[in-house]
């Protein structure tokens, strides 16, 4: 809801400011610009300036249905936005934990324009509304815990001093245990880590033995009571920590951050020491008297740094975990990428998707039509490809042959989708590279191609050619991409990514209808980001030629499979690579299905692609893969 930044009456000056705010709408898109384009929305043309940081946004724009995990992340984004802020929702009504929408509209460009018009009115009237309500959601709650700046493994609920070094513990915020928790807990156990952590500590405390230490000289530790050899004070009992490297890998508060672009709750101290967590370092031995150099309560820097990971340049540095996604500009929306940064270099990564896994029937019956719908709704970036995949597998299972004309129609539609998908990727990649022209141009073209019939597509041919020509001549593009994200030949690669390494992995090559149309797979061999870009550019022209050869574009028709029983499989070359579906039919119902998607394979590449790259290169390498988090199956 629109919440007044400053309460009070709507005076003349305020009216002016509110009008200005209504005219200058800045939006943060959830789940992202790629989905908006794929759904045919041009947000900038509708009058909302898109921004990268939630702090700069006044409108949170939610496009379509999103998974609960993404909604949680969106709620964190919403909480970071400066007031007055508003929520514009297109085509969905399930929003929890977000507050109710200020404006709801249907998921289409006219709907968007209409929604924005309403939003402007709402802003002009409500920006200084007297009644101010706060947005509150469970995942925003912070629990204050106390930790030692030097010993991040020391975490407790009450203030006090560090049992290891005697320093005063610093408060820091940890997120409350999420109520929701993500249904598939593969990406990060952030929401539970604090629980684990607390448990760890408790259990360890119970297990720990008693030892005695001097309050002034923490390095003095002995197992019997007595007095300190240095100052003569009576030693105090304390619980000894077992010096086992327990894993605090996710002590870092970034669990709250996956969603958000903010990192608000890191503080400098933690930030610079959070790297220690990763090495599973134990400071236990510090207590145990290998500190022969201490004359005062002295903190050895050697001990602090000796277990830090070494960067590629050999300097031990603190590493920080920084979340990129799920709404990070330039990355596929829904992709949660956490990079461990060593300065500007990526030391490690953790990638996953926050989208829902679509459930496939497994020994349960499902209507063929709803099976097809479920599969094609899964992937907003390439719905037709999955539609055809499902239809083809069912036809194979039922033993139905389709006519060549119908096959040509499908090829036309599939290739058109490939063009739109590649153009969408180009737009996103342009955003990633900071290449604004490409973002705008490719997005405009994508919207034009989306529902174009074959004549319109042929009319668009020169535009596409000039886009490709301009790209090939752009200075700096080569130096930005050549040698970045180089991949070796690997059987796990699919689609353009595989063809850029020189593997002829294309489901179309084995399809007789395609070969009859003169299809020949494109390939490059350098395997870097540039090669992937070139393969996709070549495929744009190739798809145009295929549409030309096929001559028709036919939207998917539901195939009647009657009450057939049998098993069948299908390969379809989606824009991201070959997808494979195996299913069994029983009396006209789908009872079992197994789906294999290209992005699932590619997700595992991220770690090798990003390691020891500079941040910009690492993100570009991830971007060049053209992942679709929506089809990733975990």
């Amino acid at each position: 809801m629109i919440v007044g930044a400053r309460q009070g009456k709507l005076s003349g000056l305020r009216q002016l400011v509110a009008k200005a705010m209504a005219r200058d709408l800045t939006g943060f898109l959830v789940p992202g610009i790629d989905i908006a384009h794929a759904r045919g929305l041009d947000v900038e043309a509708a009058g909302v300036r898109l921004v990268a940081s939630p702090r700069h946004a006044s409108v949170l724009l939610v496009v379509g249905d999103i998974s609960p995990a993404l909604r949680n992340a969106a709620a964190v984004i919403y909480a970071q936005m400066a007031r007055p802020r508003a929520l514009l929702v297109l085509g969905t009504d399930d929003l929890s934990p977000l507050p109710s929408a200020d404006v709801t509209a249907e998921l289409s460009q006219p709907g968007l324009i209409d929604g924005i018009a309403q939003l402007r009115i709402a802003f002009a009237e409500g920006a200084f509304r007297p009644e101010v309500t706060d947005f509150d959601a469970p995942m925003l709650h912070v629990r204050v815990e106390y930790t030692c700046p030097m010993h991040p493994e020391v975490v407790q609920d009450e203030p006090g001093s560090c049992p290891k070094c005697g320093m005063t513990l610093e408060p820091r915020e940890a997120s409350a245990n999420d109520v929701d928790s993500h249904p598939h807990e593969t990406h990060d156990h952030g929401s539970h880590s604090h629980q684990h952590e607390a448990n760890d500590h408790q259990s360890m405390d119970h297990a720990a033995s008693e030892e005695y230490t001097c309050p002034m000289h923490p390095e003095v530790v002995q197992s019997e009571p007595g007095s300190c050899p240095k100052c003569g004070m009576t030693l105090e009992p304390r619980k000894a920590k077992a010096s086992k490297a327990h894993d605090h890998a996710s002590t870092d508060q970034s669990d709250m951050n996956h969603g958000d672009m903010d990192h608000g709750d890191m503080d400098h101290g933690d930030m610079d020491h959070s790297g220690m967590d990763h090495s599973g370092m134990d400071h236990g031995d510090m207590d145990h008297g290998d500190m022969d150099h201490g004359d005062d309560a002295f903190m050895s820097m050697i001990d602090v740094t000796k277990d830090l990971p070494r960067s590629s340049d050999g300097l031990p540095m603190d590493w920080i975990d920084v979340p990129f996604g799920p709404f990070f500009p330039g990355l596929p929306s829904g992709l949660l990428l956490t990079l461990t940064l060593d300065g500007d270099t990526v030391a490690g990564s953790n990638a996953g998707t926050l989208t829902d896994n679509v459930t496939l029937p497994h020994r349960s019956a499902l209507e063929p039509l709803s099976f097809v719908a479920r599969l094609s709704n899964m992937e907003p970036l390439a719905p037709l490809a999955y539609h055809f995949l499902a239809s083809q597998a069912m036809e194979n299972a039922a033993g139905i042959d389709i006519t060549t004309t119908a096959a040509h129609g499908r090829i036309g539609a599939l290739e058109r989708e490939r063009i739109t998908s590649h153009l969408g990727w180009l737009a996103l990649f342009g955003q990633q590279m900071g290449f604004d022209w490409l973002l705008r141009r490719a997005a405009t073209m994508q919207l034009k191609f989306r529902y174009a019939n074959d004549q319109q597509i042929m009319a668009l041919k020169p535009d596409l050619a000039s886009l490709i020509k301009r790209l090939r001549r752009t200075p700096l593009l080569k130096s930005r991409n050549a040698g970045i994200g180089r991949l070796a030949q690997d059987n796990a690669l699919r689609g353009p990514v595989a063809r850029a390494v020189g593997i002829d992995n294309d489901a179309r090559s084995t399809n007789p209808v395609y070969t009859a149309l003169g299809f020949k797979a494109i390939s490059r061999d350098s395997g870097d980001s540039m090669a992937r870009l070139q393969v996709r550019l070549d495929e744009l022209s190739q798809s145009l030629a295929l549409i030309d050869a096929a001559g028709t574009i036919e939207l998917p028709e539901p195939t009647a499979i009657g009450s057939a029983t049998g098993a069948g499989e299908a390969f379809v070359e989606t824009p991201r690579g070959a997808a494979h579906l195996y299913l069994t039919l029983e009396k006209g119902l789908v009872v079992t299905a197994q789906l294999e998607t290209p992005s699932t394979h590619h997700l595992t590449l991220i770690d090798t692609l990003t390691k020891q790259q500079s941040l910009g290169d690492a993100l570009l390498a991830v971007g060049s893969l053209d992942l679709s988090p929506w089809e990733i199956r975990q």
Partner: protein
Amino acid sequence: MTPELFPALITGAALFGIGIYGALSQTNLVMLLMGVELILAGAMVNLVAFWHYLHPDTPAGQMFVLIVMTVMAVEMAVGFGVAIARFRAIGSVEMEEAAELKG
């Protein structure tokens, strides 16, 4: 007694004193360098004051300040070079942990 000189000279003296304190008391090499920078800054203030109040016609006074600035830059460059090397070697730039550098 030349009262006109006092503000500058006392500032120079104070900076020098703070610099001495810093250079002696800090345990970290980088902080120690900061102390040295302050000592040199104190010297520069005095040089400029003398030039301005006593010998404004001699450019050599200004020249000397330029040399001090060079020395500051040299000190920084060498200091950081040493700091990086030590940090790489033993992971510390703490003076307490530089026992092998003791004369």
